[in-house]
């Protein structure tokens, strides 16, 4: 083995070592003491991951019919719903959908108008005070980036693998596990007024169980109308809201890294050729 390949190995080893130092930053988020999360196999995981537009459409239905009465999504515009990589509603569908909503517009004499595809998703409450007033003092967080503002905590060494698998689905996994774990509180726990016990959190929160079997009517009977199915669909939809360009980003990444690998191989050969007349 010649010397440069030895040092190259050293380099890679060093990189791995130093990275394992960085590894310790794995999100120590949400001190979850409840049940272990069940990680889902999302279609948008991994380097070839992309959203399943049918799942996003179902997720949107759950959002619109259930969650949107409390949660806003200020960074999502109606037009996003017909964009590449998303739920792929048709432009006409989006136009019709937007027209169902009213936008406050103080510039107009009437003070309001029907929404257009360019408008952002309207907030269910006019002010934070109103929102808290209707939710026993708690504020239902905006959904726009909520899926990236949560994560599941994993034990050592499992989180360490995330750096190599590129696991970035902690948010939807958190949401899924939150939604499917509304159960009766243990006997020794007193749940305060306006709060609900959640076994995943191992604690209470101010949102009651929003989903029940059959609460949303899916078209056809391919997909079961269960809490689990709804939860997976809304979690996927929320991830799309938070990261709408995921698919194109990953595609570009695959092309970029393939190119870099080839380029590195060629550069190495050129470098070796140049150095071939030097004892080193």
């Amino acid at each position, binding site marked *: 083995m010649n010397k440069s390949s030895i*040092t190259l190995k050293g380099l890679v080893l060093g990189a791995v070592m130093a990275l394992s130092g*960085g590894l310790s930053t794995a999100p120590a988020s949400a001190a979850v003491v409840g049940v272990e999360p069940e990680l889902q196999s999302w279609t948008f995981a991994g380097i070839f991951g992309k959203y399943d537009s049918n799942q996003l459409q179902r997720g949107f239905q759950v959002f619109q019919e259930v969650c949107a009465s409390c949660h806003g999504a200020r*960074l999502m515009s109606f037009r996003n719903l017909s964009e590449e990589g998303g739920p792929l509603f048709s432009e006409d569908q989006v136009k019709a959908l937007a027209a169902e909503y009213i936008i406050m517009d103080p510039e107009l004499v009437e003070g309001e108008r029907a929404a257009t595809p360019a408008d952002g998703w309207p907030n269910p409450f006019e002010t934070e005070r109103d929102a808290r007033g209707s939710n026993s003092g708690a504020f239902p967080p905006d959904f726009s980036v909520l899926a990236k503002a949560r994560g599941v905590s994993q034990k050592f060494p499992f989180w360490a693998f995330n750096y190599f698998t*590129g*696991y*970035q689905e902690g948010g939807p996994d958190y949401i899924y596990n939150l939604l499917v774990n509304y159960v009766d509180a243990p006997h020794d726990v007193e749940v305060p007024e306006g709060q609900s016990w959640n076994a995943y959190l191992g604690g209470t929160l101010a949102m009651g169980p929003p989903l029940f079997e059959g609460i949303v009517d899916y078209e056809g009977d391919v997909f079961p109308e269960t809490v689990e199915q709804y939860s997976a669909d809304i979690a996927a939809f929320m991830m799309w809201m938070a990261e709408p360009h995921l698919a194109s980003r990953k595609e570009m990444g695959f092309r970029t890294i393939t190119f870099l690998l080839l380029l*590195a191989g060629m550069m190495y050969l050129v470098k070796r050729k140049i*150095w071939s007349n030097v004892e*080193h």
Partner: protein
Amino acid sequence: MSGQSSYNPTNPVEKWFDERLPILRFSKEHLMDFPTPKNINYWWTFGAILMFVLVIQIVTGVVLAMHYVADASMAFDSVEHIRRNVNYGRIIQAVHANGASMFFFAVYLHIFRGLYYGSYKAPREILWILGVVIFVLMMAISFMGYVLPWGQMSFWAATVITDIFGAIPIVGEPILVLLRGGFAVDNATLTRFFSLHYLLPFVLLAVVMLHIWALHVPGNNNPTGVEVKSSRDTVPFHPYITMKDLFAIVVFMIPFAWFVFFAPDILGHPDNYIQANSQITPAHIVPEWYFLPFYAILRAIDFDMLFISSKLGGVIFFGGSIVILFFVPWLDGSKVRSGTFRPLFKPFYWLFVLNFLMLTYLGAQGAEGIFLLLSKVGTAYYFAYFLLILPIVSRIETPNPLPASISESVLGNKGE
């Protein structure tokens, strides 16, 4: 090292220009002919990698600044606007955010290379000191950059870190107010951090130029630590080193791209996707990974020493852990540069590396129980390495015999 020049302009225009501004001569001497030890290994490519990342950070940063709004009520959404609506915004933003991590990753390897091969020793002390200045600037820049997206971690990191300065006696309070632009972290903090975050990278660039100037006076050190004796020991910078550096840069770009395209948020904290809120303190306030070793040192001091409170003590050790780097050239008295030939130095060095990784780990854990105890041990070893081990080892150690020259060491290698 620029002896007689090989630059001989023949064309009259070039000659005319050379007599007025010899920039082509300068480039030829420093970017092409510059004699470089032929035995430097891949650890020596990190300087070029750092140059590359610095340029990437400046270019992406300037583009981000075109869309970013430094206002407490708009900053968070403006960063999301970049990710969502600006063409290639998600990529540009991810390159810049992950670029900071890659920058520190490279700089740590660069520093540890210097510590192993004794690159800080005469005649390269100024080169080393400029390096430490760069490191301090990098920390300031990345800390202020992290505040800009105005998420929960941005806000609380800003609060905790500026608070550190408040512990300094007498001047602490005025410094704190000056940093924050008021008594609490607020819009005034955000706007001044943005202004400085845009300014300081150019100061950094200037210091990097001095760093390279200081490198080009004595020339590179090398893995044997033996000075260059004749032209047989060196190769011209171009094409030998340029090609090797470019290859290393491309290899470095692969994990960089991995993070940017496949896991752009993995090095960040989910809480930073929650807009800053001065009313809600996050459960754990964790700094970015590259600050963790120093954060562990800060928190390791939880006891009062004489008239020094634990808070001030933490600040002294935190500051001291960086300031001490300035003195390394004089703490290590060994005449032998390269750790390869120092049998006693070597185990202490690798223990120092492990200790540093341990401190990184501990910085992310709660400051209690076994973690706190280990942080104290780690802090003690960190300082002992510089203040006791380097001075003592260099006095009592018998180094292994050095090769007579670089060329000889290279030939020796082939024989093995």
